[in-house]
């Protein structure tokens, strides 16, 4: 296997007036070259923070981020600048992530200027035009401003800006959440096509479970800054082992007539991530919680081949040995 990105015991805490907010609390995983790792969870689970820390857009509090053998947390400013060519990001909101005072062509080409990749104006124009073509933006839009375009086209600009550097890794933070379903499907198809053609590696952060199943090879489920479960996308959906994943998957409304299912309705809501104690983060809402869960945080273990779960009682709940 060829690992592009390896995260080891990554932590990101934010100081708040009430205490430390544990946004990411000891997460480890690997992303193989050319694969898509889906990161799912509900609001406040730390998934967006995780994406940003992985690109070192936010400093980490502890742990290692190893990208192509280099620890991103230890490199010099200059080296980080170089590394950034290979790590790009697509943002959630195509309305606020584009500078309203720059036209389409200069937004897409800005990374080329920052990294001094073009020697002439002609080359710049050529690269921008090629990239616009790849993401399906008509040449006539080159000198329009973001407000003149609809959400789908704006997200295409965000994608063009990310791929113009020919990066190896792209962190996609909810890239289709702000779009209508018919447009969402166009963007998902575009992302998959680009991945095939350019051997891109994606970290795909989203709360939309059907989207993540569609696009990912492996999926990590987060709950309050920790990883609850990680498996291949087929295994996770066919055979969820963690009680939170089970409830989460059963909560997805299915677009089929008469599709009333046995649903696990969780009690209460996500608890506060501030000053968390050493216990299972999901215990207050869990149907199977015991005293052990309230006193000790479970570690992620490989319960079945390539299927990792962090739960003290995973074997009893699922009748495993």
């Amino acid at each position, binding site marked *: 296997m060829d690992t592009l990105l390896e995260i080891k015991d990554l932590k990101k805490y934010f100081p708040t007036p009430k205490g430390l907010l544990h946004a990411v609390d000891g997460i480890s995983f690997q992303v193989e070259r050319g694969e898509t790792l889906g990161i799912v969870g509900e609001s406040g689970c730390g998934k967006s923070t995780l994406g940003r820390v992985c690109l070192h857009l936010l400093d980490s509090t502890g742990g290692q981020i190893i990208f192509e053998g280099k620890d991103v947390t230890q490199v010099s400013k200059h080296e980080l600048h170089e590394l950034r060519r290979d790590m790009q990001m697509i943002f959630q909101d195509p309305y606020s992530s584009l500078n309203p005072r720059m036209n389409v062509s200069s937004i897409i080409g800005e990374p080329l200027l920052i990294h001094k990749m073009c020697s002439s104006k002609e080359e710049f124009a050529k690269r921008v035009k090629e990239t616009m073509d790849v993401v399906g933006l008509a040449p006539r839009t080159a000198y329009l401003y973001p407000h003149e375009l609809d959400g789908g086209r704006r997200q295409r600009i965000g994608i063009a800006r990310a791929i113009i550097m020919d990066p190896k890794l792209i962190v996609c933070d909810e890239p289709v959440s702000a779009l*209508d379903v*018919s447009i969402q499907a166009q963007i998902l*198809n575009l992302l998959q096509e680009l991945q095939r053609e350019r051997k891109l590696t994606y970290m795909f952060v989203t709360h939309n*479970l059907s989207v993540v199943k*569609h696009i990912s090879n492996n999926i990590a489920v987060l709950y309050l800054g920790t990883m609850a479960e990680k498996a291949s996308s087929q295994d996770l959906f066919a055979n969820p082992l963690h009680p939170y994943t089970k409830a989460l998957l059963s*909560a997805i409304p299915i677009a*089929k007539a008469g599709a009333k299912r046995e649903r696990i309705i969780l009690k209460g*809501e996500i608890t506060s991530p501030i000053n968390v104690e050493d216990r299972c983060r999901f215990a207050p809402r869990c149907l199977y919680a015991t005293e052990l869960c309230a006193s000790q945080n479970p570690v992620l273990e490989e319960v079945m081949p390539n299927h990792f779960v962090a739960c003290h009682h995973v074997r009893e709940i699922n009748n495993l040995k």
Partner: protein
Amino acid sequence: MAEKFLEVKNLRIEYRTEAETVYAVNGMGFDLEKGQTIGLVGETGAGKSTTALGILGLVPDPPGVVVDGEIFFEGEDLLKKSEKELREIRGGKISMIFQDPMTALNPVMTVGAQIMEVVQLHEKGLSKQEYRKKAEEMLELVGIPAGRAWEYPHQFSGGMKQRVVIAIALANNPALLIADEPTTALDVTIQAQILELINNLKEKLNTSVIMITHDLGVVAEVCDKVSIVYAGQVVESGTVVDVYDHMMHPYTQGLFDSIPDISTDGKELKAIAGQIADPANLPVGCNFSPRCPHATEECMKSEPQLREVAPGHMVRCFNCTKL
């Protein structure tokens, strides 16, 4: 035929500004029986929310103008009512749950006071204690302990705030509840709680519900009937089984093909080509024709009407029976 509980006929609403006229709702029509739930499904700019505002007489004027149409509610045309009469109906017989619970509540009033406010407007002559008690009862009905009635919105989470909004909407036991994307801003596990709550309350209070959403999954969970809306018109309507299992309109087909299905594996999605119709600049002929894979010359020239393809199953397409 018996009198319908709610019947919207040929509703047309435009937003007129100096620069352009936006044709938001273009001949919308649907009906609803007592105790039934209908889903209005469509994408941004389809005119779903404007239709809801039209029923409540809340279309902002200017720039909004109700150009044509009738809205019969319990036999009376709401569009002919005076502002005073409408004020009696709003929050009383018809009430609305808004999309975003974060902005629908007043941040400087306790949630209890906000519920009392609606009750006081429609049910005069009770004592202060009785109003307070009513507010606490409503909160308990939606699963919030009465002890939290005198807290402020910022002390509640998103899901709890949406429960408060539902409690306000239900405070006067409305006959018709309009829910505009009630779960869009919420996480799935919280969405599941809220949908279960709406389903339970519907059974308990026999309320009719108009559920406005873009989520076909939500409709399958709670609705009896569904109307698919595109560019301000119903393009297909019928029971959930009619529309989900025997869909006829190419747009409905396209919508279903666009959703990644969790029960199958990641093939390429069949996206609908092109952009959503711009309501300020609608195409000639069928509104969907520029995006439709089956469009013929006829579709580009003249506008199709809704026709009944099976009892109760209406489709707005020239070619649907051939496809």
